[in-house]
């Protein structure tokens, strides 16, 4: 995203499309990566309003115990309680307009 913005900033303001960072600010752009080991970094770079949690069931053979998946998410020490709640509920509710 930083590369995109770097390139787009060279375009004249009259012709330049909306930057990804503006889309994030407007809460129009989301990423599903809330269950990954890199999520802490993602929160630092993108904020915690744009990340979504997913089970990906039945795609991953090692991720079929839903209780365990949820426990793992809420047991994470690298994310704040607020971030965890946003990732596993609030953001999806907003994205899907539920």
């Amino acid at each position, binding site marked *: *995203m930083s*590369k*995109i913005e770097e*390139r787009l900033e060279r375009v004249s303001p009259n012709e330049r*499309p*909306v930057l*990804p960072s*503006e*889309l994030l600010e407007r*809460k*129009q*752009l*989301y*990423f*599903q*990566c*809330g269950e*990954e*080991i*890199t*999520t802490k*970094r*993602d929160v630092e770079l993108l904020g915690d309003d744009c990340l*979504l*949690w*997913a*089970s*990906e*069931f*039945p*795609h*991953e*053979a*090692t991720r*079929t*115990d*839903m*209780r365990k*998946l*949820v426990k793992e998410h*809420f047991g994470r020490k690298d994310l704040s309680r607020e971030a965890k*709640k946003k990732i*596993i*509920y609030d*953001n*999806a*509710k*907003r*994205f*899907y*307009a*539920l």
Partner: protein
Amino acid sequence: MTNRQRNPRIIDADGHVRETDEEIIEYMSAAYRNRRDAMLYFPLTPHHGWHRSIPANDFRPSDFRVPDWREWASKLDEGNFELTVLYPTRFMHIGQIGNPPYAVELCRAYNDYLHDKFLSRDRRFRGMALLPLQDPSAAAKELRRAVNKCGMLGGILPADGLPLPLGHRQYWPLFQEADRLGCALSIHSCNSLRDNDRYLQPNEAPVQQHHVFRPDEQTKKSPARLPRSRLRLGRVLNEQDRGAS
């Protein structure tokens, strides 16, 4: 501990159905159903290609599940999910269909299948519609049908296969429809079909599968101009740190 802490609210933003050609053809028009044997001789879509959930090519039947709605519902119970939003598996390759009327037919059939086999069976199942961007006005029409008639939450943009980048003006009718509907649009990764046999090598596929998104092309234009639209990128940024193993 409060009740909310004991029973947190959970939305699964990305679950999957494992649709089969034998099921989908039942929702296609008579012209296709009447030629069932011929149609099913080859896969209805370019095939997905590899068993991602089988570690190191060590096949164990219990690892690969094709859940019906009852099995999926038991998983919702198990995790105490409020709901799951369902995406396809094989039909994620819809972008690789070259024939527009055929793509339109497949998308309609898949969306009808999803509604009949899952969404109408349990209120906790919600779905995202498959869209035939090969014909953008048909895609807009199908999105409208899927959202208004089938209760779906939005549409899926193919991550691979289309001849033009997703931000191209040709696809704007679809984005404008999504904005009118106020619904979500999602890009979910799928593996490229180039050298598909190579993905049978251990550990190669999980790295390759997430490198489909091309941000310079796809974030350029119209989704950003549409105030009510929201765009989700499936598993784009997160696998970079793992590297090839």
